[in-house]
């Protein structure tokens, strides 16, 4: 038996490529690719977090972009007030405060919406998570203080000890390490006793309940963990783009996030990262040809759903055995 399966190889090679290529591009003066890679890695974290509940838990959350938005606004709002005054309680450039806010607000939002959504099943769950995501979208759209629809420019990035987020290299480094940690975290959780229950409930909820598991609580816990991780991705994204708007939470963003997971391969370690990478690259390439890039992109999406079972990682698995 090989020590490393084909899927394992793809994972390791992919992660090595992500570690080496973007810094190389930056150092050779092609900052554009570094930007692309940073976005890709941050969305990768969000996709990895969604995969925990979607891939391993069978919870099709169609509102995960809300967490990204909440995380980003947790940077933007305190930073805005630190610059322009008001809301003294949180007005600050302190990155640790931003981080605590991002994680805390995401956790709270996940707890409340999850507690309600998880009482439902199937299509109801898909639609209700989508609706809650949209609720967050409309909430921030209605907040004129933060420019509503037009969004907010972050003038000063989060100030963290030891790391300067104004440096593209350091921001990328933080994002990359965060991605690795997120992947390891999900892997650990999935293999733990908690993870077994989560996967069991995905496969056969009635059986799990009959065995004595209150699967509702386990799912809720997973939903909150996933939301918090996604909020963290939002914290990074806010610092990366330095511009945030309700559009980050729009349901189409949530749809894209789901697509990344499915495209790469749900319930695999590297699938979501592969998915977000291919997604961002294809988006970039298509949009450089035409402003109507959504058309071929949509066709591709339909094609993937119709023809690629198990996502891109599934292609490797198929031949491995």
């Amino acid at each position, binding site marked *: 038996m090989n020590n490393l399966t084909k899927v394992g190889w793809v994972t390791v090679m992919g992660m090595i490529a992500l570690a080496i290529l973007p810094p190389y591009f930056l150092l050779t003066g092609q900052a554009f690719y570094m930007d692309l890679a940073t976005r890709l890695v941050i969305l990768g974290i969000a996709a990895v977090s969604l995969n925990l509940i979607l891939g391993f838990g069978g919870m099709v959350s169609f509102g995960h972009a809300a967490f990204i938005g909440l995380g980003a606004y947790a940077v933007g709002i305190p930073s805005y007030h630190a610059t322009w005054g008001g809301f003294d309680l949180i007005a600050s450039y302190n990155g640790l405060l931003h981080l605590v806010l991002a994680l805390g607000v995401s956790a709270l939002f996940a707890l409340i919406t999850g507690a309600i959504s998880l009482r439902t099943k199937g299509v109801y769950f898909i639609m209700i998570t989508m609706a809650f995501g949209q609720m967050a979208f409309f909430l921030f759209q209605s907040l004129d203080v933060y420019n509503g629809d037009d969004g907010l420019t972050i003038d000063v990035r989060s100030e963290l000890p030891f790391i300067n987020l104004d440096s593209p290299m350091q921001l990328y480094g933080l994002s990359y390490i965060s991605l690795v940690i997120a992947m390891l975290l999900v892997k650990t959780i999935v293999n*733990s*006793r*908690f993870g*077994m*229950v989560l996967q069991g409930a995905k496969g*056969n909820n*009635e059986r*799990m309940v*009959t065995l004595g598991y209150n699967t509702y609580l386990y799912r809720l816990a997973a939903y909150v963990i996933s939301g918090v991780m996604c909020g963290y991705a939002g914290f990074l994204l806010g610092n990366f783009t330095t511009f945030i708007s309700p559009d980050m939470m729009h349901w189409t963003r949530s749809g894209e996030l789901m697509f990344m997971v499915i495209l790469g391969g749900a319930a695999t370690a590297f699938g979501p990262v592969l998915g977000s990478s291919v997604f961002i690259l294809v988006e970039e390439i298509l949009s450089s040809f035409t402003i109507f890039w959504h058309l071929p992109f949509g066709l591709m999406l339909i094609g993937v759903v119709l023809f690629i079972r198990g996502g891109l990682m599934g292609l490797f698995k198929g031949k491995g055995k």
Partner: protein
Amino acid sequence: MAPLLNINGLCKSFGGVIATDDVNLDVQKGEIHAIIGPNGAGKTTLIAQLSGALRPDAGTVTLNGSDITHKPAYARAKLGITRSFQITSLVMGMTVIDNVALAVQANDGHSFKFIKPARKIHRIRDKAMKSLEKVGLNTRANDLVSALSHGEHRQMEIAVALASEAELMLLDEPMAGLGAAESAKLVDFLTGLKGQRTILLIEHDMDAVFALADRISVLVYGRIIATGLPSEIRANKAVRHAYLGEE
């Protein structure tokens, strides 16, 4: 002696169909109590109300003297009730041993444990393996459940019920779809459990029922028409007419 399980005035109907009609029943600790009855008599529905999967319309269920009528299914499992399913209900995408291990893990405290790999916890894995050995599935431990045959699925249902270490096992037609040899093996096996576990056994296979049961209740159209020793049931005119006579 107070019964382990007491069912009192249990009623359940689906729309116009009365599936459980004022059922009263005691199950004594340690006995194998069989429930027989024609198709559609309401046997599965009765089990579902005992396990907590279905809510009764009326009546009470008492376990060890405490009322569990309004307890959700997971809480009843914690109190010592397990059930097997007439139509195999396992986690198909998982391996055989993982399935059984989940049953063991359910009795091993809560599972909000995120760090230690579940498959490395020998306490749990060993117990799961023992259950598999008992039903003779140990060689297939690492296969996916979906790769197993129907007969093996039936054995797994038993292994899972065993592994959960519940005091009261509700077995819904464990022999369904098994060949004669497999059935005989299962009868031997359940005989071996006598006295250790309390079993409420639903079964169409009359040879198995009369070989195993300490007492038998006959359910027809949602009503219990007779309860008694196997010999009494065999001799009961109403039962012969309503049920055994059909064969």
